[in-house]
């Protein structure tokens, strides 16, 4: 062994210390909590080790509701938002006049505060004693009855939730995709044009493969982000998500820790680890699929 071999470790030490304190230790701690049965945070005691916390969480109807909500949110918003972002980016990339203006407009939601955006959505969708809400006025114009989007049926609330999520995540995706599209060598398009390639085929066979690493990155981060949804839901439906039936997994974890029914770090830890397992599985599946469909050059 080289006598200087400790040196690299010395240089890495600051990073390792911080990672250890703020990432490895908490992760380890969460795992410990999740198997400590009957943990009492006040007295720091527990009376056994086992998988009871997991079985409790998995049988808790609130958790199952949160699980269902989260999955619906993920399955609807990730493909839709990526697809819409792709459409808008291709559009933005192909127009010339006022391109910068449009790019700015599409990026605005990204720099807007979540709660402020939530408020705007309330105004759009919420029924108050004075107003039906802007969206209901539009629906009413076409002859359909008013729908209570905030406190009404499940599908209406889910619709608002998905709509909101897609709208919030779009700017970042558009930003990434427009820069990916702009970095494709224009010679590819010229070559395709000389060969008489139709626009559809050019998009599917050239553009999409060329930007596939970025699309893949957006899908992975999109999945992870959607699984971690919480603040957006609070912004629209308030803090009592269980009552609204719109809780998410992260919301459930929060409620178990600090909510009105809170004070159960063991249940919260178990739920958090279940979420971790789900995200890990999905990401692995994504990576497997990507081997065939993503082209790195």
């Amino acid at each position, binding site marked *: 062994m080289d006598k200087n071999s400790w040196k690299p470790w010395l240089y890495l030490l600051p990073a390792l210390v911080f990672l250890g304190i703020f990432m490895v230790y908490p992760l380890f701690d969460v795992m410990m909590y999740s198997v400590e049965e009957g943990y009492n945070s006040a007295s720091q005691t527990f009376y056994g080790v086992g998988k009871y916390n997991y079985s409790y969480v998995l049988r808790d109807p609130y958790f199952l509701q949160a699980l269902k909500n989260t999955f619906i949110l993920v399955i609807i918003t990730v493909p839709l938002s990526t697809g819409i972002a792709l459409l808008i980016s291709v559009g933005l990339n192909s127009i010339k006049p006022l391109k910068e203006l449009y790019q700015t407009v599409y990026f605005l939601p990204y720099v807007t505060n979540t709660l402020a955006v939530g408020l705007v959505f309330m105004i759009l969708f919420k029924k108050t004693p004075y107003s039906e809400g802007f969206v209901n006025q539009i629906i009413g114009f076409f002859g359909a009855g008013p729908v209570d989007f905030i406190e009404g049926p499940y599908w209406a609330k889910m619709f608002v939730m998905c709509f909101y999520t897609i709208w919030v995540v779009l700017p970042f995706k558009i930003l990434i995709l427009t820069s990916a599209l702009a970095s494709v060598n224009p010679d590819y398009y010229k070559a395709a044009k000389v060969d008489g390639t139709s626009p559809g085929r050019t998009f599917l*066979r050239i553009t999409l493969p060329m930007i596939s690493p970025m699309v893949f990155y957006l899908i992975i981060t999109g999945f992870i982000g959607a699984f971690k949804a919480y603040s957006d839901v609070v912004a629209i439906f308030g803090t009592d998500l269980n009552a609204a039936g719109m809780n998410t997994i992260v919301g459930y974890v929060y409620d178990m820790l600090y909510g009105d029914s809170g004070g159960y770090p063991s249940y919260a830890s178990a739920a958090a680890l279940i979420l971790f397992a789900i995200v890990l599985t999905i990401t692995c599946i994504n990576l497997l699929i990507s081997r065939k469909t993503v082209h790195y*050059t």
Partner: protein
Amino acid sequence: MKIVLENLTKKYPNQNRKIKTEVTAVSDMSIEIPDGQLVGLLGPSGCGKSTTLNMICGLEKPTSGRIYFGDTDVTELPPEERGVGMVFQSYALYPHLTARQNIMFPLQNFRGEKKLSRSELEARAEEAARLVQIEQFLDRKPGQMSGGQQQRVAIARALVKMPGVLLLDEPLSNLDARLRLQTREEIRRIQRETGITSVFVTHDQEEAMSISDFIVVMDTGVVQQIGKPQSVYDDPVNLFVAKFLGTPQINVFDGTVKAGKLFIGDEAVLDVPGVPDRDVTVGIRPEGFVPDENGVLTCNLHAIEVMGRDTSVVAAHPAFTGHEIRAIIRSDERPEGSGGTVRFNLKEKKVYLFDKDSGERIRF
């Protein structure tokens, strides 16, 4: 297929929007390229040669003028209806497709009656691959191939549609020196085998001279001279063409004509009967110098560089306009020693006179 360019002009709006004047990339260009010939468009960067190529291809529309392929006016036709194959400087091979898929790509665009079956596709692609000799690399992706192999795939992809015209944009600029020599022979061979009318763009005069049937020398959007490489080299119409062709570059002196004699400095170096007395610019090709103890032109000797077959004599002269004079002589004629002076006689055919202001050739 014969290509005719008629008064072709291309103007762009100035990139700086505050300047309203347009930039003329190509100005009133008229040339005729006979069927089956390989033509080199030659000029320094920014001279409009790539713009010309893009207009022939159809990627850019001319501001005025017409383009004919054979007897057909193709000026208004989009690229895909002109039947051209194009090889890009960057090759533009799709990196996610194998060489085979790249070559088949243009054929898969055919729709309706022209649509090819799977086996026809394969056969055509393999035929094109055989022509450029890359059969064994067909299942590799561009990233797994050398620059020369990628170049061949790009040529195969351009040829697979059997176009009437092949266009090559700086085809050799991305290759190293040895591969460049090989590939230019290769391009020549492929062009001869297919008999396809080809136009290629280059800023490298050696490249253009070595493989073209004839060359078109351009500068600032204007055609300077058209002709066979050797005749353009031997008989340049102006100083620009003389300077642009040939390595090492032609040596340019300030001179005067007095009473039918050409003076460089105080020395009368050549008889130039019929030229009126005036100041001129004198161009002497490096191979136009003959060392001679009693020579007519006296220069300060700087160095003698031995290059095997030839020897390069580096010298200086007060009337010389460039950095240093370079004379190429046979090694067995090498003058002795270094430092001091060296005297040359001049070969009359290698000396050109040009107008001092316009750079136009003055014949004698």
